[in-house]
């Protein structure tokens, strides 16, 4: 182990660690732009320079590796390196570097989206000069679209080249490069091509200033007005960790959260802009019952009463085998768990439980860094099937077709699943179909009774991704109509069947119960799962990727 003294504090580190890494790991801020933990070290912004005892020149801390020194070269007899990021020389250099960056940078803060999360603003405030002495004309170039998702404002760009390195090393698509030389350098694409790979949106996250902006988020709101919720992306079974940013009960954007085991620092564009689908969907705000003249409103009490009547009648007349249920791979573990309990204990269903939609085909789309997008476009297939205790031989649609199942409880909550004609015909053979969904989907349209629940952004609980990792999902939006959270609906129905059948005071109590009773989920309470999730005890360990070593400096 090597011993370094940084700003007067001692740290023991693995040989080969850089000074900047030591600082970051220990909460010491050394300002930097071009360094990113997942990208090749270039040392070009010169912002992170530090003073090292024994070296005549200041050195970039991002590239300075700490190595064990022979005894006679140790400083004070014990340190392999002594560094300061606070000396006068360093402070002076920080001021000049910021001055250089600001001479051509436009005074755009009032109109720039990055304000509030801009490294240039933050560092200028902390390390920069208060006045500018630049009297010449600033370099001016028009803004451009780099691709459909990303816009570049060249005047604000500080040429840190994070975006170029990202496209090359993480996405592997290398659409971006630097063009021209010196003063005229700028980020560019080949004529006729654009930045359109599926990870493109990440360059906006990693751009330290307001040069790369998301067309989607452009001019929407100031970032300090956003409410931030940690959640999981619902687009596919990878379950990237995200943050949902909301203002006025509307999602303004979703950005990735770091989870080295799942998505590292990234998310794909499909997931990033997924929330729009849900905005555009026409919500159902009240329970609806199908009549001859279309759907009509019914009260919750009325709906639950109708439901229980129909199910008990059919059950009595045609037996318990005539009842079936589809859990949902879009709903949480808790919701599916409660559903299973209600169906089996409440309605006496034995085998007739299934999961909709069926398996998706195809291979995951894998990027250079290992980041992947899965073909399974449901966020919780694994979790739902664990909770539902499915019998793999049961084909519910077949049982509907041959008139075995006459009453079905269909949980949906997803988006854009169009039924095949075959499936519709099967559903139409039912005597009674209840669909729990949040909008008038293809499935909901077939229902006799629709119970309005939430979209994926309105759920709280846990979901299990393709790796078998149980992750927390938290509600970011609160619907304004008469919808109820899906787990609440199931509890209400259960409690109507038998008083206090389900008397949980919160979703997390259900999580605890799951951790006590479901195989593989032992110990996975809310606190154990935490913010980074935890693997089921019986997880089949798949390839976890998403982490590049990134560093190529010896």
């Amino acid at each position: 182990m090597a011993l370094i003294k940084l700003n007067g504090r001692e740290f023991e580190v693995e040989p080969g660690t850089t000074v900047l890494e030591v600082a970051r790991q220990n909460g010491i801020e050394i300002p930097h732009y071009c360094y990113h933990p997942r990208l090749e070290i270039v040392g070009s912004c010169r912002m992170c320079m530090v003073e090292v005892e024994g070296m005549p020149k200041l050195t970039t801390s991002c590239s300075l590796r700490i190595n064990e020194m022979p005894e006679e070269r140790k400083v004070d007899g014990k340190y392999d390196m002594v560094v300061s990021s606070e000396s006068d020389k360093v402070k002076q250099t920080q001021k000049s570097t910021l001055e250089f960056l600001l001479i051509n940078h436009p005074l755009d803060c009032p109109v720039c989206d990055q304000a509030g999360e801009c490294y240039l603003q933050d560092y200028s405030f902390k390390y920069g000069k208060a006045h500018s002495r630049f009297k010449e004309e600033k370099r001016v170039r028009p803004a451009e679209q780099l691709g459909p998702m990303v816009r570049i404002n060249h005047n604000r760009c500080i040429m840190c080249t994070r975006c170029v390195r990202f496209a090359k090393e993480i996405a592997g698509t290398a659409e971006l490069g630097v063009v021209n030389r010196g003063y005229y350098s700028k980020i560019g694409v080949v004529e006729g091509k654009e930045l359109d790979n599926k990870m493109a949106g990440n360059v906006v996250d990693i751009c330290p200033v307001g040069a790369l902006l998301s067309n989607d988020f452009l001019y929407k709101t100031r970032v300090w007005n956003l409410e931030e919720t940690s959640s999981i992306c619902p687009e596919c079974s990878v379950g990237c960790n995200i943050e949902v940013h909301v203002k006025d009960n509307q999602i303004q954007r979703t950005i990735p959260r770091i989870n080295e085991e799942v998505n590292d620092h990234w998310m794909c564009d499909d997931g990033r802009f997924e929330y729009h689908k849900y905005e555009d969907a026409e919500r159902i705000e009240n329970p609806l019952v199908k009549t001859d003249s279309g759907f009509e409103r019914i009260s919750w009490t009325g709906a639950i009463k109708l439901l229980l009547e129909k199910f008990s009648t059919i059950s009595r007349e045609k037996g318990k085998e005539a009842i079936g249920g589809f859990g949902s791979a879009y709903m949480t573990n808790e919701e599916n768990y409660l559903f299973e309990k209600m169906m089996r204990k409440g309605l006496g269903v034995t085998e007739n439980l299934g999961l909709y939609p069926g398996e998706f085909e195809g291979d995951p789309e894998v990027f250079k860094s290992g980041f992947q997008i899965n073909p399974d476009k449901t966020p919780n297939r694994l979790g739902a099937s664990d909770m539902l205790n499915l019998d793999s031989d049961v084909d519910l649609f077949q049982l509907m077709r041959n008139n075995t199942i006459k009453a079905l409880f269909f949980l949906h909550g997803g988006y854009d699943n169009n039924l095949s004609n075959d499936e519709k015909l099967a559903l139409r053979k039912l005597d009674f179909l209840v669909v729990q969904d949040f909008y008038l989907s293809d499935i909901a349209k077939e229902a006799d009774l629709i119970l309005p629940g939430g979209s994926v952004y309105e759920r709280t609980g846990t979901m299990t991704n393709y790796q078998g990792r149980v992750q927390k999902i938290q509600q970011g939006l609160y619907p304004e109509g008469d919808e109820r959270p899906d787990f609440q609906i199931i509890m209400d129905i259960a409690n109507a069947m038998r008083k206090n059948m389900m008397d949980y005071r919160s979703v997390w109590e259900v999580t605890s119960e799951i951790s006590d009773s479901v195989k593989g989920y032992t110990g996975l309470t809310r606190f154990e799962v935490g913010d980074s999730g935890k693997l089921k005890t019986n997880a089949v360990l798949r390839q976890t990727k998403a982490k590049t070593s990134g560093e190529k400096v010896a």
Partner: protein
Amino acid sequence: MSLEFSPENQEKIQTLLDRYPDKRSTTLPVLHIAQAQFGTLTPEVINLVADAIDQESMHVRDTISFYTMFHTKERGKYHLQVCHTLSCSLRGSEQVVDHLYERLNFDENGMTADKQFSIEKVECLGACGTAPVVQINNDYYENLTIERLDEIIDKLQAS
């Protein structure tokens, strides 16, 4: 109609790919070959080069934009590169430029109407002892005087 390298150039490129330890290192030599054949490095030429050496188009585009000898805009039949760094400047490069502007009418892009001549001020050509110097296409013309300059232009115009 897609662009192709001449058979002779294809052979040259193959030889380069065989001799160099890796393909990307052939970027500059192949670009010189491409510019010699096609004159201007248009986007089609860039893609052709990228294919020939198995690299990304963006890499080729990036590289071209860094070097002053690679042009993406059209130049005249005779491209006049006048050095104007210190030693040439001290010995009258400005007079050379002025005289060229007088003799040949360059537009705002530095091109004559008949596209015979284009002009560019370049940095030190490494011939400071024989200043002032102009490089016309690949050839150096040194120890310039106004008379010599006129002779050179006359000769080029006649050819």
